[in-house]
């Protein structure tokens, strides 16, 4: 499979799962591979920027640009981060201290789901009593509801393989982490996110709320086990993708409980909204080498932005790129619009349900004051220089990557696209 030339590599602007990023470590007992036999040397070079875009004339047509490929889904679901889990010193009650535990953390999985195997490994060293398990990297408690792959992409600027983490069985930091009751909490969080994604995509959560018990259970099991086949059997029924450039989503009366002899109403036609979760990490403005990035010491230095991107056709734009999406969602770091990011409409000034645009207008804030000093082009260049890295599913993506391809192929099982952005500030 590694040798086969994949259709993904046909276009330079599409991310190359096998080339640029080597996070693919496989699951089901296969040990992680070294980076093609060479370690990444210290000071290997400046932060690699993906190759520049080809001429737009060579770009694929809209449908090809957006196409969902099963191969990509298998790679995403199959990806895993090699972990080396150390038991926190204060939790060690028996000498000699136990060796660290090596395991694979599925990229689309969650840390609490690993607890049973980790606990089994450390059981002889643990103090008696009730355990409250939490994970920590360089002093930062890890948020358990963020997928493992996202945490790795966000917190390990220079990917560490294996990723050295510490597990704690006591002293849960309740002021920083919301409580976690093991697998149930993760399942609830997954279902909640799925409902939110459904609401974003179709305008309501009916398709998820009306899933049969059996389907709900089967879907969760497929996520827990990383079983893409079972997942696809159920997820296709939900009709939550793939997204299309035509941007028309017909909201049907799927799941409506009105009498079945009523003809299904055509519903309204709305622009396509893509669920996105952004994690913006501030690094040094002059950062050149990823390994020099200051580690994240608290969650205040990471901005979490949970905001859908609405796909709109614009004059003169053939394909919506990743850059266009980020311009809209993070206007103060991308794009030429003035700085105030829309935190929402002034409450009295807009009717929330009729939607402040998610696209490129910033509602409720004065918009027309450009700073006198720099031209828009200069500002653009300056702003883009602050963006050090955009990482999705472990890959540094070029800003010219077609956004629909990214949204369709790199999203997580709960239908959210998680994007890590490193900003020099």
């Amino acid at each position, binding site marked *: 499979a590694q040798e086969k030339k994949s259709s993904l590599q046909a276009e330079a602007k599409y991310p190359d799962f096998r080339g640029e990023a080597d996070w693919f470590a496989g699951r089901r007992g296969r040990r992680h591979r070294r980076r093609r036999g060479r370690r990444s040397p210290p000071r290997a070079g400046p932060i690699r920027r993906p190759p520049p875009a080809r001429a737009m004339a060579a770009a694929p047509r809209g449908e090809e640009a957006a196409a969902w490929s099963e191969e990509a889904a298998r790679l995403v679901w199959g990806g895993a981060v090699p972990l080396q889990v150390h038991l926190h010193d204060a939790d060690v009650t028996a000498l000699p201290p136990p060796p660290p535990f090596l395991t694979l953390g599925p990229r689309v999985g969650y840390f609490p789901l690993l607890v049973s195997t980790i606990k089994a490994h450390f059981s002889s060293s643990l103090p008696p009593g009730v355990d409250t398990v939490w994970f920590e990297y360089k002093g930062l408690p890890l948020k358990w509801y963020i997928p493992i792959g996202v945490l790795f992409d966000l917190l390990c600027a220079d990917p560490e393989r294996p990723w050295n983490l510490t597990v704690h069985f006591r002293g849960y930091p309740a*002021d920083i982490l919301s409580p976690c009751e093991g697998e149930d909490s993760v399942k609830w969080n997954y279902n909640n996110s799925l*409902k*939110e994604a459904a*609401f974003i995509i179709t305008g309501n959560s009916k398709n998820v709320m009306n899933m049969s018990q059996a389907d709900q259970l089967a879907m969760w099991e497929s996520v827990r086990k990383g079983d893409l086949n079972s997942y696809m059997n159920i997820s296709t029924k939900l009709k939550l993708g793939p997204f299309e450039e035509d941007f028309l989503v017909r909201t049907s009366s799927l799941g409506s409980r009105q009498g079945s002899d009523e003809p299904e109403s055509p519903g309204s036609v709305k622009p396509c909204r893509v669920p996105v979760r952004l994690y913006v990490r501030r690094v040094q403005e002059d950062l050149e080498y990823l390994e020099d990035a200051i580690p994240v010491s608290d969650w*205040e230095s*990471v901005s979490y932005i949970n*905001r859908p991107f609405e796909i709109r056709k614009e004059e003169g734009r053939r394909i919506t790129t990743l850059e266009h999406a980020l311009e809209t969602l993070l206007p103060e770091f991308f794009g030429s619009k003035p700085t105030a990011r829309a935190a929402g409409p002034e*409450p009295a000034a807009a009717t*929330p*349900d009729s939607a402040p645009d998610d696209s490129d207008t910033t509602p409720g804030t004065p918009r027309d004051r450009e700073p006198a000093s720099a031209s828009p082009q200069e500002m653009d260049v300056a702003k883009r220089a602050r963006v050090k890295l955009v990482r999705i599913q472990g890959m540094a993506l070029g800003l010219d990557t077609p956004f629909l391809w990214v949204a369709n192929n790199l999203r997580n099982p709960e239908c959210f696209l998680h994007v890590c952005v490193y900003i020099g500030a």
Partner: protein
Amino acid sequence: MISFSWQVQSSRDNVHLYDFHIVYSFSYKVPVLYFQGLQAGGQLLTLDEIKKDLPPHSLQLLNESKWTFITREEHPHLSRPWFTLHPCGTSDWMKLLLHKLGDKDRSLQYLPAWLSVAGQAVGLKIPLKLYCSS
């Protein structure tokens, strides 16, 4: 984001301080109420302790209504876990509240109408003046 605080005398010696934030949700396109309670000494209150402070009709609303229920969520701006009234039902009950109003009235009345339901669920007393002024 709108924020305000509220003090509750929970018992003879105990005062609890509540912080409320109203934040806009881009996913659900509705306002969302976030809140947390603190003991006088600064310790966070658990959900059970908060429920003890709620008036009975609020508890009833929370238990019986499918539209209003409290969950624990990460505060969108403060990066800490807060309690929230889950927003998934909001647009449904707002449609019911506002369906007779024209567009202009709807935007003026939206937030007070929303607060009349959300506030009840968490025991807030909204001054009548808020509804009487235009």
